[in-house]
């Protein structure tokens, strides 16, 4: 009955989607296609008119140049930096988030002040990443700065021949990468924790009761019940964090301008530098790098698509199967 009526209204489905579709075509699809085209051309220089760009004699030359280069400032190194800094932030992040989730959702030892802790852990996520980057830069400043003063007070107590000089933390590649990872970790573990807790709360409490009656320990309950039950959310967190991590820009760009020696230049910083800071304004190289990142992210999105596919239908099918089996059994 409902269906018949709404068929008459079908045109409104199209009409109401028009603003979205138009804006999408102009501001997203066209720029994507345009970026792809630029990736195959010789377009360089801020004021070079687009009309004068030409497809290269070997259309893939930009991609080859980008992927071949190695050493400081090369795309390969940037991709490596991005992955390293993402991994170093994600592993501690998910570990801590899981630990906190286990603590906060444990019925047997009710933790007080959970609301306040959640609010405080989530706080860094809401702050402008640009401000956070500059703030940490100020903390690491050389020769005088908060971290330097901690360092010298520790060294002067434990070592008699400390020269009292400051240390330029942002000149140390591994340390700077570590700081970027730490900031990302610090900004995102609260978010991950809140997601995981919501997932655990969604689990049927009867399962936990059953486990408790069967004498399962907390650790057993957590690893054998909780984690398998929040698998979807864990995957969601993993994929969204990967996509976010691959686009890491604000923190590495502002903390130390991708340095020292290109050690914190991520692929997004690389794209920005090629197009807008390189004196030659190499839009073609930047576009080619964008396309490579685009392909990687599309593959990850497909994974996400697979994770979020309609589970209700599948579960319904499974239920029906079970019912049929049960009926057979009875018969």
């Amino acid at each position: 009955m409902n269906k018949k009526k709404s068929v008459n209204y079908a045109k409104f489905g199209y009409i109401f989607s028009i603003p979205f579709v138009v804006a999408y075509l102009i501001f997203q699809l066209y720029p994507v296609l345009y970026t792809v085209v630029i990736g195959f051309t010789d377009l360089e220089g801020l004021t070079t008119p687009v009309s004068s760009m030409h497809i290269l004699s070997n259309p893939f030359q930009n991609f080859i140049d980008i992927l071949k280069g190695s050493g400081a400032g090369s795309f390969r190194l940037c991709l490596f930096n991005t992955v390293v800094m993402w991994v170093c932030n994600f592993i501690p992040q998910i570990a801590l988030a899981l630990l906190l989730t286990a603590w906060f959702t444990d019925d047997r030892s009710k933790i007080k002040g959970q609301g306040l802790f959640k609010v405080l852990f989530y706080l860094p996520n809401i702050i402008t990443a640009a401000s956070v980057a500059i703030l940490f830069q100020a903390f690491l400043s050389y020769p005088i700065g908060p971290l330097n003063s901690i360092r010298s007070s520790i060294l002067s107590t434990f070592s008699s021949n400390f020269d009292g000089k400051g240390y330029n933390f942002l000149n140390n590649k591994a340390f700077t990468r570590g700081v970027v990872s730490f900031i990302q970790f610090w900004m995102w573990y609260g978010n991950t924790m809140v997601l995981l807790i919501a997932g655990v709360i969604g689990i049927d409490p009867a399962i936990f009761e059953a486990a408790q009656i069967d004498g399962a320990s907390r650790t057993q309950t957590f690893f054998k019940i909780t984690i398998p039950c929040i698998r979807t959310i864990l995957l969601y967190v993993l994929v969204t964090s990967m996509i976010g991590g691959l686009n890491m820009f604000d923190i590495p760009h502002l903390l130390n301008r991708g340095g020292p020696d290109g050690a914190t230049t991520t692929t997004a910083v690389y794209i920005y530098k090629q197009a807008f800071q390189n004196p030659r304004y190499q839009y073609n190289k930047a576009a080619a790098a964008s396309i490579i990142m685009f392909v990687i992210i599309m593959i990850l999105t497909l994974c996400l698509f697979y994770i979020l596919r309609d589970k209700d239908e599948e579960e319904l099918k499974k239920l029906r199967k079970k019912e049929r089996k049960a009926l057979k059994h009875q018969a």
Partner: protein
Amino acid sequence: MSSQSLSKSRDSFLIKVVVYVVCIILAIISIMPFWIMLVNATRNSEQISSHPISLIPSSHLIDNKNVFEKKPSFQPVTGFINSFIVSTGATVCALYFSSLTAYALSAYEWKLRDGFFKFIMGVMMIPAQCTMIGFFKMIYSLHLTNNLMILIIPAVASPAVVFFMRQYLQSSLSMEIVQSARIDGAGEFRTFNSIVLPIMKPALATQAIFIYVGTWNELFRPLVILTEGSKKTMPIMVSLLNGDIYRVEYGAIYLGLAITILPLIVVYIILSKYIVSGVSLGAVK
């Protein structure tokens, strides 16, 4: 038996102590950087040079403020106004048109609907960084750089918001209400504005917060598009603080940061309940 339960309760006490200690340390790590920033915003460069970390505020707030009058490349008021315009405009565009699209997706049955929804899900995660070169070249040849509208209008197509709104409508919109509005003679567009939108209020509020904060904090797109000082948004203003002009003005740098961060903290404290509970809404469903 009793000794076993005793050791068990001692264990759980020990676990509780560990939990609280870890949580308190994490809470301090969350607050400490901002506290040091606020305190240093009130101290002058000499004080910060001799003792970079202090927990007690000093009295040089005004001196630090005056630095920005002498060296005015960091303009917080301009940044604030521009960010306000962009964030408000983008939030309104994203909310209204995403709701409209979500309504089209859940209230009507049309041929391309499922394909369209799958498409929206597919492009949901494409980040601005990947399309920036084409976007910039398009804007540049249209002479629209330094135009704030160019950061607002594209929000009309926000796939992630459409996705979230559709999920919400699927669970909370009953077609009976829409049908009765039709019987009363309301047009489809009017039904959406006066009946469906109010139903979506809770979802709109949650999304409004996240879109607003997200737009406010965005650096990449504004950095590429806005080059004129008078058009810069807050995050770009902040990035000017690490320029050479403010090299030794430690207090002023901290004050500049505090000006950009404090409003967010205040808003967060007021809305924290909704924010923390809103984080998981999109993902869990």
